[in-house]
Structure formats: structure tokens, C-alpha cells
């Protein structure tokens, strides 16, 4: 059982970890690197709570072997959050009561960030489609959809996030 060294860019920082064969990115982030914003829900690809951005695209870290991301850019919620406050998407989720237990929030927020990067003015339908892989058991989704709309407005208004 030969462990391997995997290097990738995590939230803008060069990162090196020693991984056992086929360890998922989810386990590496949470258990080896202490980045616990990435959640563990189903481990079946069905809930989206483990969503991270790989080169800016949402992927499910529970299904992704850490070795596969060698040399690539991974963004987690930790990387989105500025030192002194909240990213505009986080701010919008906070202001619009789009967070109850918060378990879905990291995945929802990262998916929203990726959506708004591609499509700064999504329709309600496009928002629903984009977040359809992120399950929320608390809010009933309406507050989340409204938060995404508000985030789009805020970002358009020049309140630029990173």
C-alpha cells in the first residue's frame, strides 16, 4: 500500500499531502488538511454538500480521488472567504436567511460562485438548474434562490468578490 505525495493548489496556496491509494479529495481536505467547510453527506454523489471547485468548475470531492487533482486548482469555501468579512455570495446568503443548519451552504455557495462567474445574470430557472445537485433539507430552497439573485445583483453592482 504505497502512499504517494500529491501536490495541488488549494485556495491559491501550493499544497502537498501524502495520500493512501484512492483516498478521496473530501477525506484529504477534511481529515488531513483540516478544511472542514467541505462537508460529508451521502458519499454517493447525491447531496452536493462536498462540492468544491476544480479549476473553477463544481465537482463532488467524495467521488474524486485526491491523486486526480495533482497540479490543479482546488477552491473550497475557506478560499472564498476574505480575511475581513464575507464574500458577496456569503453576504447574500446571510442577509436572505438562506442558511438554517448550514450543512448545504458551503456547496450551495461554491456552486453559486461558479454559476455567477459564467452567467452574471441568471434567470430563476437557470439558478434552479445550477443548484439542483445541492440538496437542502431546511430552507425549502426559496430563500436560497433569492439569495443567489441578490448575489448576482450585488456582484453586478461592483461589489467584487474574489
Amino acid at each position, binding site marked *: 500500500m504505497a502512499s504517494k505525495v500529491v501536490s495541488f493548489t488549494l485556495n491559491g496556496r501550493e499544497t502537498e499531502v501524502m495520500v493512501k*491509494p*484512492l483516498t478521496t479529495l473530501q477525506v484529504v481536505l477534511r481529515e488531513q488538511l483540516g478544511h472542514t467547510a467541505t462537508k460529508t453527506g451521502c*458519499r454517493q454523489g447525491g447531496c452536493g454538500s462536498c*462540492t468544491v471547485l476544480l479549476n473553477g468548475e*463544481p465537482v463532488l470531492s467524495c*467521488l474524486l*480521488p485526491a491523486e486526480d487533482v495533482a497540479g490543479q486548482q482546488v477552491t473550497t469555501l475557506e478560499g472564498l472567504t476574505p480575511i475581513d468579512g464575507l464574500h458577496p455570495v456569503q453576504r447574500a446568503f446571510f442577509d436572505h436567511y438562506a442558511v438554517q443548519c448550514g450543512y448545504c451552504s458551503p456547496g450551495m455557495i461554491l456552486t453559486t460562485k*461558479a454559476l455567477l462567474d459564467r452567467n452574471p445574470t441568471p434567470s430563476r430557472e437557470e439558478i434552479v438548474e*445550477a443548484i439542483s*445537485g445541492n440538496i437542502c433539507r431546511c430552507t425549502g430552497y426559496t430563500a436560497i434562490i433569492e439569495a443567489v439573485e441578490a448575489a448576482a445583483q450585488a456582484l453586478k453592482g461592483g461589489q467584487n468578490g474574489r
Partner: protein
Amino acid sequence: MIVKDYFLPESLDEAVTLLAERGPDLLVMAGGTIAMMRMNEGHLLPDQVMGLRRVGLDAITINGKLSIGATTTLSTLANNESVPMLSQAARSAASWSLRNMATVGGNLFARNPYGDVATALLALNADLRVINRNGERVLPLADFFAANRQLEPGELLADILVPPPTGQTVYHKFGRRAYNTPAVVTIAAHITRDGDSVTAASIALNGVAATPVRAIPAEKMLVGQPLNGETITAAAQAAAETVDPPSDAVASGWYRQRMVRVILERVLTQIMEQEQ
């Protein structure tokens, strides 16, 4: 999980060599949305796994036929408009994040009622290029399904070859929700007409058997006939009568059988009303 070796070959050559040396104990994985999930669940406990993300089979090229590399993601196919029915089928599958990982080749191995892209590929008479250490062969997708998705030991799926559609195509996935939903039934149809009358019909159904299947009796009834209310109803009825769909958590077999009729009627009507 106690996997001893995880290989990430950098070329197709390296991959088929590894597979030849390691034999059937080496689990092949492309996007991993089926394989990793089953390993996480403990339903699959392989000693050795080979990932295909770096073998360089992730491109779509057009050279007479459309050639889709087996590890092309569903997102890449969804964004490629060369065959609209295929991009639509890819978009209808799962969620954005899953489509960024799931591959077109892997979709052919997905169990019923999954296999949205596979269903469209079956209606388009796609062929598979399969490769092992000693060479390659091409087999019709329909034969692959008839053989219950078995490749020979040592073989990998390299590309999917799609002849350009000559007629009209319509794809309809019917699920219980609008997005990210497994199919109750999926229907993909490719119909060629000359003037009034149908000259070729290819209709693929999914959700009704262990693999996507062609609705042969319905196809036969349509060829040589015009598309009108009567012929459409008869063909849809025939398609429903010849299937015996399974019941699962998504829908009962009873409901699925009725939905085959309803959805096929809608699909054929849409084709009838479209400009040829």
C-alpha cells in the same frame, strides 16, 4: 477502503498494458460517479483500481462520423452542439457537478434507469471502438447491450462513433422532477421521412429493461407510412405492449409501461409537426 494500488496511466497504451498484466482484478474507473460511489458504500472492494482521467480520450472530433472519446465528460458533450440530440441528452443527466465528472463511456455502463446519453446513442446507431493490447475492434452499441455490457477481458472502451443523423431527432427524458432526476422513461427517436412517408425509424427506450432497447415493432409499423394521428397512436401502443418495465424506487412497471405510450406519442407528434 483498503485499495492497495491506484494507477493513473498517462496514455491508452499504458492503460491497456496494465489491464493485460493485472487482469480482471484491476477495476477500471473513468469519471468514478458509479465506481467510487460503490466503493464508498462498500459494495465494491477492489485491491487495485485504474483511473482513466489522464489517458487522453476526452475529445470530440468530427471526421465524417462524430467520434466521442470514452472519457469525455457529460459537460463537454452538453456544450458540443454538433448533434443536438446528444447535447440535450447529456444536459438531461444528473447535476452540473456530476456532469463535470461523469463520462460518456461510463454512461454506457450505468444501470437502468440511468443511461440517458446511452439511449440517444442507441437511437443514432452508434458504434463502439474497443481496444486491447493487441489491437482493436468495432462493435455496434446494440450488440454491446445485447451482450449485457460485457467486454472481453483486457479490453477498454476507447471511443464512441456516431454517424451524422440523416433525419429528424427528438429526445425526451421523463422524470419526476424537472432537473437532476432519474428517468421514469427516456425516449430518443431518429426518424427519416421522404415527402409524406417514413423511410427509416429508430426509436430507443430506457427505463423499461436492463439496458436501453430499440422499439423494433413500433419502428416496423412506421416505415412506409405517413406520420399522422392514427399511425402515431398505433406505434406508441405497440411500443408499450412489447415492454415489461421493472418497478423501482422511481416508478412502478405499471406506470412506466403507460408512460412509454404517452411519451412516444408526444415524441412522434413533435417530429410530425417539425419541419423536415
